[in-house]
């Protein structure tokens, strides 16, 4: 009971299992327990929730990977990454079976279907590190038909989504190339907020970050049905199979719970990982050197390990 | 009621053109606009080669409608129009009641139009255009646009456009109404001269009794509501007619007869 603080969390896509932890924390009252009433504002291909956060219209925003946080450092934007709920970038490239024998091989295909955001982030790294060609890229309009139609193409996808749709409708299982495995060692699905929010109401940030971590633990290891119901309410087209597929893939690839999260809990970040990724990106020339990286993240809220206990008790059942 | 045929006192039965072969006959034409505006009722008219026919009658009696029927621009509600000759395009020309010039073209280009539609280049007919414009007194306005002309000047361009090709049949709807009397007289003479030179057929709408008598060999007097022919007068005076004809006693007699017919038309009500 008592007085709840209203906050809004803008995601980067329409409601889906990849947002499961947040819906879980709403559904089971985890946020409410520490005093937050959370509204999720779903994103979309051309929805710009980040601008809303910069303008103070929403409190938290779901970042894709760390590259944009580096941009914020460059532009002097007082924004901080306060948690990373995906330890691994779940972004993959898909190719027709047998068309490529290695990740590097993909650059010899005719076309690479990459969305605008992807082009601005990981494709920059692919070009710099692997020599992919900017001219082969065509925009991904979030419709896999062109990929299916063209054998000599590859397209971007979330490990948890596109492979499912393509296998079901296209009738073949595409080859999957996880960016994280090819060296794109960023965190993903970060929680970003403005410095002012941290300064003015750290308890809100703490509640949101910790609540989310607990939410993710419950979603992955407990009963996700209440969260799934909320997801399906926000996105009536989300099918049960798709959700099941996504959860399975997140677990299979350790998207949420692996690496640093195993010790410090879901959402955890370490300076080594961040600095390491930054240095790699500087090396290949995707971002410039000398940015004050320490100013754009804070492990103060993310590494408290609150989710470890929840996970342990769920696993022991 | 049927059309009566009056003949002016001095009808001496002279037929000014040798071959008066029939060109067109309108038989019992009705034309109804919309539901109930009867523009023409039971109109019959025979036009022969070389005729100069004037249509005379009160405003709104269907003169323009009759002309448009002849030009095949509208179709009769009932009755029949029979062409007795091949209608080769270019044989016909019209002057509408409004000048109807192309606003985007200069005076000379407007006059060029009928030739242009026959595929003739402007250079090849420059002489004809200049001649037609001189006829109507607009030799200094070749390059003016219609909007720069006075009302009467626009109408004169329209007349020049109709005459420039020396067509076999000319339909004119009050062509001289916007002109001063002296210009009007001059153009009357010019028209008759042209007619005798090329032997064309003219159907002419006018409000002027004097003009109709001076120009025509037949005057069709119409009455309004519904529009119909109530008199047909013959002016059996030989062509060419000179300025002296205007002061002759025959002329005055014809005018008086025509005026009476027109008065009749005004008083006619069904």
């Amino acid at each position, binding site marked *: 009971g008592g007085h709840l603080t209203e906050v809004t969390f803008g995601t980067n896509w329409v409601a889906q299992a990849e947002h499961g932890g947040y819906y879980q924390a709403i559904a089971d009252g985890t946020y409410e327990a520490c005093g937050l009433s959370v509204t999720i504002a779903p994103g979309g291909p051309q929805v*710009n929730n980040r*601008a*809303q956060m910069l303008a103070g219209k929403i409190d938290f925003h779901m970042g894709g990977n760390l590259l944009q946080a580096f941009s914020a450092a460059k532009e002097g934007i007082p924004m901080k990454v306060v948690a990373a709920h995906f330890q691994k970038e779940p972004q993959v490239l898909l190719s027709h079976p047998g068309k490529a024998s290695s990740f590097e091989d993909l650059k010899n295909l005719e076309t690479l279907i990459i969305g605008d955001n992807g082009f601005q982030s990981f494709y920059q790294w692919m070009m710099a590190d692997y020599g992919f060609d900017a001219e082969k890229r065509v925009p991904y309009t979030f*419709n*896999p038909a062109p990929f299916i139609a063209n054998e000599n193409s590859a397209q971007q996808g979330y490990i948890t989504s596109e492979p499912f*749709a393509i296998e079901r409708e*296209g009738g073949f299982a595409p080859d999957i190339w996880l960016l994280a495995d090819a060296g794109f060692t960023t965190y993903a699905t970060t929680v970003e907020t403005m410095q002012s929010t941290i300064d003015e109401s750290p308890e809100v940030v703490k509640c949101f970050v910790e609540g989310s971590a607990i939410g993710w633990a419950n979603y992955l290891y407990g009963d996700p049905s209440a969260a799934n119901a909320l997801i399906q309410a926000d996105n009536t087209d989300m099918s049960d199979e798709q959700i099941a597929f996504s959860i399975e893939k997140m677990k299979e690839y350790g998207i949420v719970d692996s690496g640093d999260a195993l010790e410090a809990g879901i959402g955890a970040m370490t300076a080594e990982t961040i600095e390491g990724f930054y240095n790699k990106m500087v090396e290949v020339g995707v971002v410039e050197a000398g940015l004050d990286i320490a100013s754009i993240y804070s492990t103060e809220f993310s590494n408290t390990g609150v989710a470890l206990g929840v996970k342990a008790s769920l696993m022991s059942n | 009621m049927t059309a009566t045929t009056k003949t002016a006192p001095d009808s001496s039965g002279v037929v000014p053109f040798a071959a008066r072969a029939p060109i067109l006959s309108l038989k019992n034409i009705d034309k109804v606009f919309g539901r109930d505006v009867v523009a023409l009722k039971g109109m019959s008219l025979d036009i022969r080669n070389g005729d100069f026919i004037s249509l005379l009658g009160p405003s709104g009696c269907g003169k323009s409608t009759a002309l448009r029927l002849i030009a095949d621009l509208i179709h009769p509600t009932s009755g*029949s129009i029979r062409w007795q000759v091949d209608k080769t395009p270019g044989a016909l020309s019209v002057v509408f009641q409004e000048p109807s010039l192309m606003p985007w073209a200069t005076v000379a280009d407007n006059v060029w139009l009928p030739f242009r539609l026959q595929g003739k280049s402007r250079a090849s007919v420059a002489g004809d255009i200049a001649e037609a414009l001189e006829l109507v007194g607009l030799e200094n306005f070749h390059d003016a646009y219609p909007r720069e002309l006075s009302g009467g000047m626009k109408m004169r361009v329209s007349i020049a456009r109709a005459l420039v090709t020396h067509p076999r049949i000319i339909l004119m709807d009050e062509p001289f109404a916007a002109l001063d009397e002296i210009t009007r007289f001059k153009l009357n003479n010019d028209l008759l001269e042209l007619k005798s030179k090329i032997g064309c057929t003219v159907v002419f709408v006018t409000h002027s009794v004097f003009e109709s008598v001076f120009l025509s060999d037949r005057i069709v007097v119409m009455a309004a509501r519904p529009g119909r022919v109530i008199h047909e007068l013959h002016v059996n005076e030989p062509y060419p007619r000179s300025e002296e004809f205007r002061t002759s006693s025959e002329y005055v007699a014809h005018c008086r007869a025509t005026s009476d017919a027109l008065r009749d038309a005004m008083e006619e009500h069904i």
Partner: protein
Amino acid sequence: MTIADPIAELPQIDEEEALRARRRRNEKVGRWVLPILVIALSIWLWDRIVVWNELPHYILPGPGRVLQALVEDWAILFDSLLVTLQITLGALAIAVVGGVGLAVLFTQSRWIEMSFFPYAVILQVTPVVSIAPLIFIYVDSRLAGLLICAWIVAFFPILSNTTMGLNSADHNLRDLFKVYGASRWQRLRFLQLPSALPYFLGGLRIAGGLSLIGAVVAEYVAGTGGIGSGLAFRILEAGYRLNIPRMFAALFLIAITGVFIYATLSFISHMALRKWHESAIKREV
């Protein structure tokens, strides 16, 4: 022109008359039959293209499959259609008010026009995607934001055409109003607006389709929270899920809606002009 035998000509001319009557009859029938035939033909062609090229349904589904999706998903699609329609009509309404309002303002003086028309052009050419975030920062109501986005897409043709129409009033009538000491407002109300009507209606027909596009684009950039999911969301979602028949069913609904809006506006236009404007009156011949 050769003088022909009068008697020999008669039958030929009667034939002509009959021919005209026949043509009129044909035309009456053809005006309805032909479009239907063309539609049938194009659907058949669509089907054949799919079959002949053995196109898989996830690239281009055949008409049968689309129809099936339309029927099966009717409940979802119809709800989305209503959402999109709501924004479309709202945007069209404010495009009319805004477009005509600005046009009237701009024709009040060359000064105002020279000073502010550039801003209208800027609004027209600014990509909605780029300024949508700005709009949503300052506009709290999502519906209002959507309407503004769709309005930006749709208002310009109305503004441009109406401005042109207001400036095309017959100059003799203008002079007449001046002689009678008409006020600016009277001149606008009784002369310029009626003169501009055909131009405005032309702009309206263009804006009808644009506001539908505007509604779709607005939904893309604004997300779906709050007022339900429109057709844009359905298309996106279905495309993403490779439920291409449903995507085409949604596209089909948009197309039909567009044609319907156009037909309605054309009808309104026809009714408003048929008494007097060249482009609409049926000449009696």
